[in-house]
């Protein structure tokens, strides 16, 4: 890579407090993420894969300034972001956006789609009422929704439509990096491919960089150029995605790959035997 990367995570550690003192004091804590390092170039797709509890979501939250780093650095476009504290600059909020897993809880049920999108447009671009309305219908168009959807509440939309609204919300600030935390896991298989296609198109059209977090390697493969596999807070294997998928070296990566359902029932028995042996090989003490 000749240019500086858009995002550079170096030796990141994040810990969670298990308990706290009565009034003051720190209590015990546990490391959710340890020594995690990776880079994402502008317009690049980067996948972070692992089981629940592997710390992949925590990495995403640290980048979004929703969790604070205990150690290490996160540099976005030349700026150190672990030192922002409580006051995250609006410029950073504009550049880095998120799409969460479950659009049912990530959209405020009491506000219409127009309110959800409009307030962000106004906040970041100070648009007039008329401009906001234009922008909102433009955003809806970009994610494949019609302008009449603007006056719906999230409860009135289907799962796929809600996730489109969540993507529109992320695009409202014109970001450069999109953190996608399990964006299709809560959706029907047939809707999953619609959303994945949308994300692929948006990346091409808007030159977005993705941090794509998922437990499903098959889903990640369709959208990213680089993949890192996480287990128990650490990265166990990383590399260009096709190389990692076709020739995994770590047994844990192999085990994850063997768990992805295959739609050919004829290979069932041999896959199952492979899974069993890999499971035994990677079992934790």
């Amino acid at each position, binding site marked *: 890579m000749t240019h500086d990367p858009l995002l550079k995570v170096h030796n990141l550690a994040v810990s969670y407090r298990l308990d706290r003192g009565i*009034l003051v004091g720190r209590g015990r804590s546990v490391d959710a993420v340890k020594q995690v390092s990776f880079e994402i170039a502008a317009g690049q797709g980067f996948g972070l894969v692992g089981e629940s509890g592997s710390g992949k979501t925590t990495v995403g939250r640290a980048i979004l300034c929703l969790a604070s780093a205990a150690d290490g650095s996160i540099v976005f476009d030349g700026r150190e972001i672990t030192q922002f504290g409580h006051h995250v600059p609006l410029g950073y909020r504009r550049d880095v956006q998120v799409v969460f897993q479950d659009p049912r809880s990530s959209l405020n049920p009491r506000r219409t789609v127009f309110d959800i999108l409009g307030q962000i447009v106004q906040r970041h671009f100070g648009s007039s009422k008329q401009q906001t309305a234009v922008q909102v219908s433009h955003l809806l168009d970009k994610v494949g929704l019609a302008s009449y959807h603007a006056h719906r509440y999230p409860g009135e939309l289907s799962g796929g439509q809600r996730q489109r609204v969540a993507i529109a919300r992320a695009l409202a600030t014109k970001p450069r990096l999109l953190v996608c935390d399990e964006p299709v896991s809560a959706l029907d298989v047939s809707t999953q491919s619609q959303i994945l296609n949308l994300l692929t198109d948006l990346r091409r059209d808007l030159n977005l960089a993705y941090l794509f977090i998922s437990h499903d390697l098959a889903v990640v493969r369709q959208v990213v150029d680089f993949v890192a596999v996480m287990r128990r807070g650490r990265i166990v294997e990383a590399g260009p995605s096709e190389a990692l998928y076709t020739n995994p070296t770590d047994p844990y990566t192999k085990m994850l790959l063997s768990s992805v*359902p295959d*739609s050919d029932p004829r290979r069932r028995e041999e896959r199952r035997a492979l899974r069993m042996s890999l499971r035994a090989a990677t079992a934790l003490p």
Partner: protein
Amino acid sequence: MTDVAVQVAEPSADSSMARDSRKGLRWRLLGQPLTVICFAGIAVLIGVALFAPVLAPFDPNFADIAHRLKGPSSTHWLGTDVLGRDSLSRLLYGARTAVVTSFEAVGLAIIVGIPFGLLIGYFGGWWDRLAMRAMDILQSIPSLIFALAVIAVLGRGANQIAIAVAIVFAIILIRITRGLALRERELLYVDAARVSGLASSRILFREILPNIVGPLIVETAIMLGSAIMIVTMLSFLGLGLNADTPDWGSMLDDARQYQAMQPFMALPPGLAIMFAVLLFNFAGDSLRDALMGTQRSQALRRRKTTRSTRPLTHFGGNNGTTRTDAEVLNVKDLCVAFPYGKKGSMEILSGVEFSLRRGEVVGLVGESGSGKSMTGLATLGLVPTPGIIKRGEIRLGDQNLIAMSDAELNKVRGSEIAMIFQDSVAGLSPVHTIGQQLAEPLQVHQGLSKQDAAKRAVELLSLVGIPDAARRIHDYPHQFSGGMAQRAMIAMALSCGPKVLLADEPTTALDVTIQAQVLDLLGDLTLKFDMAVLLITHDMGVVAETCDRVLVMYAGEIVEEGSAIDVLTRPQHPYSRALLAATPRNEARVGHLPTVPGTVPPPWDWPTGCRFSPRCPHAREKCLAAPIPLKNGVRCIRADELEFAHDP
């Protein structure tokens, strides 16, 4: 069917239902006569307070010494007090004091308590801890004594009383608001708002507040009632207002002093206090019922079952299919309908037929809204009201489940036929250990002793692959991970050795690795228990990994059935093919993934002909003419013309 077609103009199923539920709040409030009376009463009380000078026949402080301590008369309807002042006029002006003081107190409490509670709940940290400890100390003082202390500092008067009451209420509101804000803070929409760069004040008041305002409204309604009580109590004790301000508390105090001479005096203020407090309490209660009503009635509905009252015997003898010994469950012509519109009904399952054999896993696959979960529920006789099973036959061995009473069905459910669901943690009771929950049905259904049941519970738990089962049996569900909870649910379903297991999306909420483990386990147990499993899923990959046979479902109909290998490698129905193509597979990037455009339409939008035709790229005019029969395992009249080769 015609009146259904007229209403197709509705934009979507979801939207009309959501609108109904919002309209529902107002309707539920107005539908209860007691509620209407309460709100009317409150309106009258406020009206009296506003127009007391117009309504009162006398000046409340005009003393007619000549007519002191009189009972009701034509001039003084409610009699006079010790100074000969008109009781009715004092009562009306007293309403004004009560309403103004209590509204002032609650208003102040809202202005201070809700924002402060939101702030400490949302930001947390040492601010929160400090504030909470301070409030713990304040709340340890009885509120009446606390109010007395405030009055001692501030002096007497209506405003002072309001402030004293407001402080007590503000503390309560801070606690409630903080608790609600703490819960909301964990939800993703708040995280999303933070990432969007919205100002904290906006997040607090525009995002969080609207979501917690319901319980707060209920609380403040009840507080208004308590405020009236505390204000009258204080003035009854002679600590509140100046002597010439008419109020119900001091009227009651006067009545107490002169009750030997004029016992009637206590009646008007006493009743006024009682009714005012009752009005606000009932109003609060009915608001609470109306706000929570949706959730509660839905939860109830889910458990109730409705079946056609007429037993369907005419299917009994002459079914054409040959039944083998291995066949344990046979479903024929199952139709489920829900009322729709004024008198009509819509079918959401039409003529569903399938059979399950011992030792076999059958996949029932389709998108959301295809009717696959309803098929599972109907098989157990658990159609949610107001739905009914219109027609059909469900044979389990020699018994027809449709003709059974609820009591008979209950015996079958859990012992011969069992079901597991997607959200396994929700299916487990949080206050009982896994062991207790496993052992209880064994004691009830199989009559095992307590020790034997506990021993069997350990066996079952290790059977589903939970390590160290003898120790984990004492754990509570929250100590189990998602995959382990699903295993425990399977253990529970298997505890009575069922012949049939219905599994509704058992792995959808799990990681792929855990999913693979649970599916492998399910395959093993099917053989070990020699049972029949119906695996309901939206994922063709899951079908391919686990199932022997497949039923593909679309819009309440089975559109294709066959062996897993046939259907997954040579799908004949365009829907099966589209669904299979859209399943993300572990293969190199393809640019654009194939999709099934659109979604399953709501039942009232289903076409008369082929129900998939609006989304089918191969649809022709002849597809729309009439319902398509299931022929050679496919519900498509062009199946012979269309040759689909699929290479997974």
